[in-house]
């Protein structure tokens, strides 16, 4: 099975990392680890894959400082743990890793907070070129769901399951597993994929039968989408050749949700090729919609304005569309939620707004 070899490869990579430290010690050198600089200024557009990846700049994590040494010590302890976990074919969550560190014999190696352990796992992903999922590390909750006319086969710990994502599931839809690569797409009537930011809007679309009416696969993003959600979206696009659209609130934070679906996030730019769907199109809410449909709005807060201005500099938003929309929004000084469409009635979104927008975008 290919998964087995994946795990073996992951384990080898981890041991290789440790061996690198070993060799550095043996040469009388100061152990260090090179990582791409994970800041906005160091992500670049990759022409081949149409996604945003880390640039050339790297930072060195060296044991030459107290801080650096602590990080490396934690890294080697984590490597040890992950290698053992793979050995025993177990898995654990990021949060479990954090608590698990409390049991380590060395206080210096224990994590101060979960951000630290999460970041370290990401670091290890980058240097070992193995994804977290292959380390058998999963996030605490994913919970994102699918709803639409597609039949899939999932390999679970309790055997294979075939599921139709409309007929075999309840109102809540099909829960995306942590490692969506265990899913096989069997057959479908899907015309396009619609990723929705909020639960309220997703429920509205399902209640109004939008998925059935237009053969839509509704993906619930649940805010900033988890990796699994982004991964399955990419697979739906790549493997089934489905157009992907993203429907969010009309504020700067939601544009970043779209950005991470389409181009990848700054934190996981090393996985952009694996997670990002550059062909994803943004439906709304656009600042233009706020004007056109005269939607109820909230004023932009200072942090909203800062976020918008920072997006104008963000390499992921350097298109005419985004520059126009962001500048418009700064000009009108307003933002709107998806639910604002309800001001025109509960069916407005499914009867009018989405059909109009999707037609305009050439999806319908």
């Amino acid at each position: 099975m290919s998964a087995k070899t994946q795990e073996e490869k992951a384990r080898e990579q981890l041991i290789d990392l440790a061996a690198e430290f070993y060799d550095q010690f043996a040469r009388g050198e100061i152990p260090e680890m090179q990582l791409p600089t994970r800041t906005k200024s160091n992500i670049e557009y990759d022409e081949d894959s149409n996604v945003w990846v880390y640039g050339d700049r790297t930072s060195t994590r060296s044991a030459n400082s107290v801080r650096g040494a602590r990080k490396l010590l934690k890294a080697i302890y984590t490597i040890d743990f992950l290698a053992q976990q793979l050995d025993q074919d177990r898995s654990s969550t990021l949060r479990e890793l954090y608590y698990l560190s409390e049991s380590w014999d060395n206080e210096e190696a224990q994590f101060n907070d979960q951000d630290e352990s999460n970041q370290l796992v990401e670091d290890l992903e980058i240097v070992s070129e193995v994804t977290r999922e292959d380390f058998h590390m999963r996030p605490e909750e994913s919970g994102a769901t699918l709803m639409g006319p597609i039949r899939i086969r999932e390999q679970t710990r309790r055997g294979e399951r075939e599921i139709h994502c409309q007929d075999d599931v309840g109102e809540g839809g099909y829960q995306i597993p942590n490692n969506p690569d265990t899913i096989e797409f069997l057959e479908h009537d899907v015309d396009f994929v619609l990723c929705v930011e909020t639960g309220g809007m997703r429920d509205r679309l399902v209640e109004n039968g939008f998925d059935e009416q237009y053969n839509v696969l509704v993906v619930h993003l649940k805010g900033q989408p988890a990796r699994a959600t982004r991964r399955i979206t990419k697979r739906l696009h790549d493997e089934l050749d489905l157009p992907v659209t993203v429907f969010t609130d009309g504020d700067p934070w939601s544009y970043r949700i779209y950005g991470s679906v389409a181009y990848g996030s700054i934190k996981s730019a090393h996985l952009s090729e694996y997670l990002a769907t550059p062909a994803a199109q943004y439906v709304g809410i656009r600042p233009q919609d706020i004007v056109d449909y005269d939607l109820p709005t909230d004023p932009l807060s200072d942090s909203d304005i800062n976020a918008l201005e920072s997006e104008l500099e963000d390499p992921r938003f350097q298109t005419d569309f985004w520059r126009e929309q962001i500048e418009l929004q700064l000009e009108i000084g307003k933002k709107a939620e998806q639910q604002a469409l309800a001001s025109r009635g509960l069916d407005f979104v499914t009867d009018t707004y989405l059909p109009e927008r999707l037609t305009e975008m050439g999806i319908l």
Partner: protein
Amino acid sequence: MTSFQSTLGEDEGIAEELAASQREISIAEFFEKNKHMLGFDSGARGLVTAVKEAVDNALDACEEAGVAPDIYVEVSEVGDYYRLVVEDNGPGITKAQLPKVFGKLLYGSRFHAREQSRGQQGIGISAAVLFSQLTSGKPAKITSRTQGAAEANYYELIIDTDTNEPEIKAESETSWDRSHGTRIELEMEANMRARAQLHDYIKHTAVVNPHARLELREPGIDEPLKFERATDQLPAETEEIRPHPHGVELGTLIKMLEATESYSVSGFLQEEFTRVGKKTADKVVNNFRDRYFGREMSWPTPESVDVEAILIGAVSGKGKEATAAFATGVADVLASRDRTCHADLVEIVDNVAESVEAETGKTFGDTVRENAVEAAWDAMTTGRVDDGEADAAVGDADDDAVEVEPESVLRAPLYAVVDDATSTQKDDATVQGLAERLAADFEALDDFRHRLTHSELKRLVDDAADRMVEFDEVTFGETARENVVASLWAKTRTVPDEAPKVRDVAANRDTASALLDAMRETDILAPPTDCLSPITAELLEEGLRKEYDADFYAAATRDAEVHGGDPFIVEAGIAYGGDLAAEGQVDLLRFANRVPLVYQRGACATTDVVKRIGWRNYGLDQPGGSGMPNGPAVIMIHVASTNVPFTSESKDALANIPAIEDEIELAIREAARELKSYLNKRRSMEKRREKQDVLGKILPQMATKVSEVTGRERPEIDGALARIMNNVSVERVVTEGEVTLRVENYSDRTETPEITDIVSVEPQGLNGDASVVDLDGEWFVKWSPSVSAGETAELTYQVADDADFDIQVDGVEAEKLTVQN
């Protein structure tokens, strides 16, 4: 007073009655009632002040005699009183001087001298005598032995508070173990509540007088407090200087004028003041004359005036030829000059008259000359410009009727000056108007020579301008007026009159004040500074080192500066760390002319300066970023001056003089900069040590874990450790009887470790520049290579197999060193 007022007029004898109850009070009596002014306001404080005054005197006496001071202070309880004894090894005091020194207030060699010394007013020690006498009723007991005297003299002395006269009550010869010196014994009502201040005073005195030996015994301590000498070097002897012209007050000046033997002001200045030579004296005298006599306004000779004709008319009976020669001569000179004042004219007339006399043999007597001068001056200053051109001037019927008269000859030159001095925004009518009025005013001057002082000129211009503003409704502001005055003043000349003699100046307060102004106005070199004796930064540090057990010391001495004619030098020192108390505020030690200031810290300029410095910049904790800093530090400040400005007679606090405060700040900052770099270095050392501690723990753990994960043997990590620490690694490797000592220098500069490898068997075949010493069966291999940054040095030798080693490394800071055996 009200009762007197109500009866005023009823009783004509009231003034006499009051006068009868008024009588002269002696200074002693005055101070009896004002003890607090001298620092004797309480028994506790009185004792400290008495010690202070006696010790200050003793130190001064010793230093003047060139003797390293050895001073003994004893306080003991005697019944209800405290007895204070202060002994010194100074030159002693002669019998004639003794009562005056100890018994007469305001007697001292110091008051009139411009020289740095501890006591200045001559109040201190006699006030202590007085205080003891007033509280205990006992006389002061003084023993003195002059150098070479066979026996010491013993006196009992009291002060008659009515007359300020000391009286020797008893006197005898006595023996004394000191070969020379003075001992004073005072009994007074006192208490030891100010023990801390007393100790501080003695201790701080020891800090700033490292050349002195001090000993203090008092009832509260079992062992005497002894402060030994840190140096035999006495403070540099100071030169007495005469006062500086910028530093005297009017009263002092008048006294000096009265006392001087000089006849002329110039002689007086050169004789009595420092930094005044002939040239400077001349400058001062000129300025003085300008103030005393005023200056004469000069005028151009008007073209409309025929001077020649006027002079011919004024001279009679000298023959046509001589008269014409004289008139032409004067007219020519005047025509060649831009401007002429009355005194110039007198001189010109005299010169021309004399040369004409020489040529023609005619005598031009005083009357003729005076007539000529008067006629010419009259024409030059009161003449009228010919009609015809005058119409062009301002015509305003409402003006104060000047216009109807023909134009004064003064108007054109005044117009030129005013026009020049005022901005272009003033319209021509205004300038004309002012010139018009000024011309009339000059003509109306009482002094026809147009002699006026600066203030008179200013008043003249102000008057004219005020009238302008009033009648012409134009503005003529302060700046414009000042400019006009300045321009006119520039056209005036110093008069040739002799400056008043010294006795005349002394006799008249206003004249003396004019002289003082002239002195202050004149640029004069700063006073010399050899009258000052700073402790010097080196000895200051020595003094701190002696009395405070700290980790760090720094001191700075500034160059001399001048305030109000008195030169001063500021010094600052800082001690930090060690045994100094880490909690609470730093200790501030204040000194003036080597005397510790114990009381009134809050009122002192030094305290203000320390508080306003941002100590956080220098690595000290300072809550709120201002105020007294906290931490284990002592800050000391010494101000030496010929005249230290205190806030009061008790000499407890320095007055806030900006010039002195600035120097204090600079001195403190200079010392504080050293503190800062010391603290920075210490912090980086601490960081290095912390890093070493943490990494020394983490890296081995990391190595262990790495070997676990990889399943390999634990890697050797010492090389990595040494490199991480940026330090010097000394390593011994023994392979089959071959010993290699390796020094690897990972720091950023050359290191010279001194390595001693103690070997239990004799090392052979030493390869490298090391030496071996045999000490009782142990061999000391001594090696101190110089290893530059990033380099490695090696030493090899052979030993038998069962050798034991013990390596010691010196010469490298412990924090930087990693030794691997």
